[in-house]
């Protein structure tokens, strides 16, 4: 195999599994260490810079980082990365003074943001300090998008959301709330230098063809519309018996909300088997903790209406069959249909994009599914000054993805307004610093405690179910936050190898607790080399660090897979051929490094 090029900024970045998996590439271990050191404000600011909504995300993030976390490969459970973020947000001091301070010198460019969700707000935050005049339009009365209209208050208190939305609006954003944009043409005519579309995926799927749908309409609701109406307190109650259709996170929010609005027998009914449900495992757990049964393998057949009023639904029982490609088919079992009583039904079976306000004769290209053609890197549409991001760009995702899109769209808009090539993206900021302080002393806590993942405490069920605004999760206290933070393996502290210092004494190979290091003859084929390591490197997602040829003709091969970043290799190396070096990787934001 070829010698690994560690000068490629992506090599060490990939070793930091959590950061690499995070759409916004938040420097996770860096802020986790700050939390352990009780430096909450700094931990918050690292998050804020990267993901814009630390308090929101510390409660609601989809956490793609956690399944990626190395700790989950070393033992059972990953680090509770997401909830640690909340510890920073809950305990921070004054952060506002550390944010960019306006008024900013205008640069003469005007940008329109359509939609006030996390994608647009991120664009606003990145561009306002550069002097752009930003106009944000949203049909709602306040900013935040679905973070406000969809995520229920018992998961995300309004105060937390308001605080973080306001940090952005306070940068001098011109807001136009209660303003539905009904024509892109009109916006384009107003001579903005660029337009960003962050309108989300605002349409909930319906079951319009199911018998009884029309007749029972008064008690059949589209999940996301219903949640928005609850958020704005237009809906304050629900029937005693509620069926929630769907197996995703929206269904989980619908059923838990129903439970708080008077629903006594709330049931989630889903077509797929339980294990295939789209909802995150923790969302399912939380629903079940609130005594909400989930009935799987039930396909809706009809709404049952009696005397003009909905009385329930009939379901057909199915079974999942998978073909050799893993493709699923739901096949009826032949058992008798199941009738379930209901006063109200909430349909939470997915969201759709919808752009009725974009005229189709403006030159914007759409694909066969009615989605605009958007560049995956630049977020530019086929109208050169119109950019997309968030759920509006490629369909419904989550907040952190919307933020990541926002950052990149802001970079593009800034390049565009400066007549630069959008494809020449600024490279990330990287930095490697040695952590050595003494023979057995490092600037980070290199011990690896065996503590199992800590559980986030929750408020009493009686309390949470009787008050929709009572937040369920209480968050880690400082001490538990510290203990959980210590579980982090510091994957950003890289094992950096210097060939010409190595005397091939094998000390590092002998001491490594997880058998990462092997000195061996090189192989042409990567799979051959992977096979012959001390413990074969079977996780192909994880790279091998292959050195140049050493004096004896062998090479040093390190499998990054389960390295504990314990530093023992470097401690046992007589010549400091290994060093532990902290790798900082920051995605470059708009305006940094490109002017």
């Amino acid at each position, binding site marked *: 195999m070829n010698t690994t090029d560690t000068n490629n900024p992506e090599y060490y970045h990939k070793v930091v599994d959590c950061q690499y998996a995070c759409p916004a590439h938040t420097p996770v271990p860096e802020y986790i260490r700050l939390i352990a050191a009780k430096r909450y404000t700094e931990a918050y600011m690292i998050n804020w810079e990267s993901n814009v909504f630390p308090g929101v995300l510390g409660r609601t993030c989809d956490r793609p980082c956690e399944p990626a976390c190395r700790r989950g*490969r*070393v*033992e059972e459970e990953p680090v509770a990365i997401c909830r640690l973020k909340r510890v920073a947000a809950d305990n921070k001091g004054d952060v506002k003074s550390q944010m960019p301070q306006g008024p900013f010198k205008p640069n003469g460019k005007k940008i329109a943001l359509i939609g006030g969700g996390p994608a647009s707000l991120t664009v606003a935050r990145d561009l306002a300090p550069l002097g752009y005049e930003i106009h944000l339009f949203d049909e709602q009365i306040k900013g935040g998008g679905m973070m406000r209209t969809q995520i229920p208050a018992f998961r995300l208190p309004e105060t937390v959301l308001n605080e973080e939305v306001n940090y952005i609006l306070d940068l001098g954003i011109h807001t136009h709330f209660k303003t539905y944009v009904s024509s892109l043409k009109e916006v384009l005519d107003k001579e903005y230098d660029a337009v960003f579309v962050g309108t989300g995926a605002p349409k909930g799927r319906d079951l319009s063809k199911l018998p009884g749908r029309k007749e029972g309409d008064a008690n059949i609701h589209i999940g996301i519309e219903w949640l928005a109406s609850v958020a704005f307190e237009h809906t304050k109650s629900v029937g005693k018996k509620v069926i929630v259709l769907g197996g995703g996170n929206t269904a989980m929010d619908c059923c838990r909300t129903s439970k708080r609005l008077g629903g006594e027998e709330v049931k989630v009914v889903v077509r797929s088997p339980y294990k295939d449900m789209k909802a995150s495992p923790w969302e399912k757990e939380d629903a079940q903790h609130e005594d909400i049964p989930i009935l799987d393998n039930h396909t809706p057949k009809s709404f049952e209406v009696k005397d003009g009023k909905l009385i329930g639904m009939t379901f057909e029982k199915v079974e999942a069959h998978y073909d050799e490609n893993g493709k699923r088919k739901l096949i009826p079992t032949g058992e008798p249909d199941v009738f379930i009583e209901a006063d109200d039904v909430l349909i939470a079976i997915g969201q759709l994009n919808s752009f009725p306000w974009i005229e189709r004769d403006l030159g914007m290209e759409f694909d066969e599914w009615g989605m605009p053609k958007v560049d995956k890197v630049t977020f530019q549409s086929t109208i050169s000054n119109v950019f997309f991001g968030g759920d509006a760009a490629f369909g419904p995702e989550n907040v952190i993805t919307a933020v990541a899109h926002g950052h990149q769209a802001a970079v593009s808009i800034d390049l565009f307004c400066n007549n630069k090539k959008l494809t020449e993206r600024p490279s990330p900021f990287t930095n490697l610093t040695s952590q050595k302080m003494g*023979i*057995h*002393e*490092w600037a980070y806590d*290199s*011990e*690896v405690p*065996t503590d199992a993942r800590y559980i986030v405490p929750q408020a009493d069920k009686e309390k949470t179910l009787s008050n929709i605004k009572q937040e369920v999760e209480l968050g880690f206290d400082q001490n538990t936050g510290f203990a959980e933070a210590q579980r982090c393996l510091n994957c950003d502290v890289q094992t950096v190898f210097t060939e010409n210092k190595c*005397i*091939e*004494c*094998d*000390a590092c*190979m*002998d*001491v490594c*607790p*997880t*058998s*990462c290091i092997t000195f061996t003859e090189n192989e042409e084929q990567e799979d051959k080399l992977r096979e012959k390591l001390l*413990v*074969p490197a*079977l996780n192909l997602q994880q790279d091998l660090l292959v050195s140049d040829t050493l*004096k*004896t003709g062998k090479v040093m091969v390190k499998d990054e897979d*389960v390295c*504990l970043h*314990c*530093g*023992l290799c470097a*401690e*046992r*190396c*007589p*010549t400091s051929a290994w060093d532990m070096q902290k790798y900082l990787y920051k995605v470059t934001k708009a305006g940094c490094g490109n002017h």
Partner: protein
Amino acid sequence: MTYIKPEFRHPNLPVNEVGFTKKEYEGRISTLCAGCGHDSISAAIVQACYEMSIEPHRVAKLSGIGCSSKTPTYFLSNSHGFNSVHGRMPSVATGANLANRDLIYFGVSGDGDTASIGMGQFVHAIRRNLNMVYIVMNNGCYGLTKGQDSATADKGSMSKKGAPNPFAPIDLVSLALELEASFVAQSFSGDKGQLIPLIKAAMHHPGFSFINVMSPCVTFNNNKGSTKSYDFVRDHASSTSVLDFIPKKEEIKVDYEEGIQVKVAMHDGSYLSLHKLARDWNPLDWVSANEALIKARDRGEILTGLLYINPKSNPLHDTLKSSDKPLNTLKEKDLCPGSKKLEEINSSLR
């Protein structure tokens, strides 16, 4: 600040026949200097015992004094151990072995511990053919007391401060051969491929198995001009053969080429398979082993690998016709067979 070895191991660590991973054969984290050859030998012992599926409680580790003699702390934490006084490991090993012949005895010593203060003990353990593995971690100096030349330092070998050693060395391998040790081998800490099978073979050999391992002292004797440095040993090692230890359960698959491949049957049905690299040398022939060693020395080479083996050796217990059971398992009836037996013994002596 660490110096604690994390508890986690590779999740895919294989398990041996007795259900253990390598972790169960490890010791405490080493406190020797980083890069010390001795640590590699410890790792080779761990690997050999793991691969042989030895139950750790069946091993007794014995040592004297020195960095080398500290190493039993760094391997086989689940085994028995006795860290004795300087140069006295063979006596303790003899006593332990006579008391309980069922254990595997692992003696670890240094060149100072063996070739200076312990020389008198060493030679008698060989002479008696005590059933044990005797490893010398040979760095040509007294590592623990800051690197003075030892009796195995070569004449002219340069100390770290630049002073050449004025005395001729004691070559422990020649000495062991001269005393007709029944298993004589030499290796290098940096060559686990050779060392691990040698350790396995030594553990199977029913008699005194001597392995002299060149084991550089990174701190005091790894300088230019030293003949015990990593670079010097690597440049001058010459291997007699490529060795494989084949446990009795495994079929031998290779075809043996007359003269080049040698198959040595061991008492318990296992085999040593040697692919000879050195010519005119036969590990079963004492004279040719001596010759090979002398010629290599003349060429300035360090001959490594298995040098000599006498598979039919007579270990001490056989010579003494001593109890075939460990003493601690003998019952009062065995120890005090009664007046009738006493009569018999007495009359036999009249």
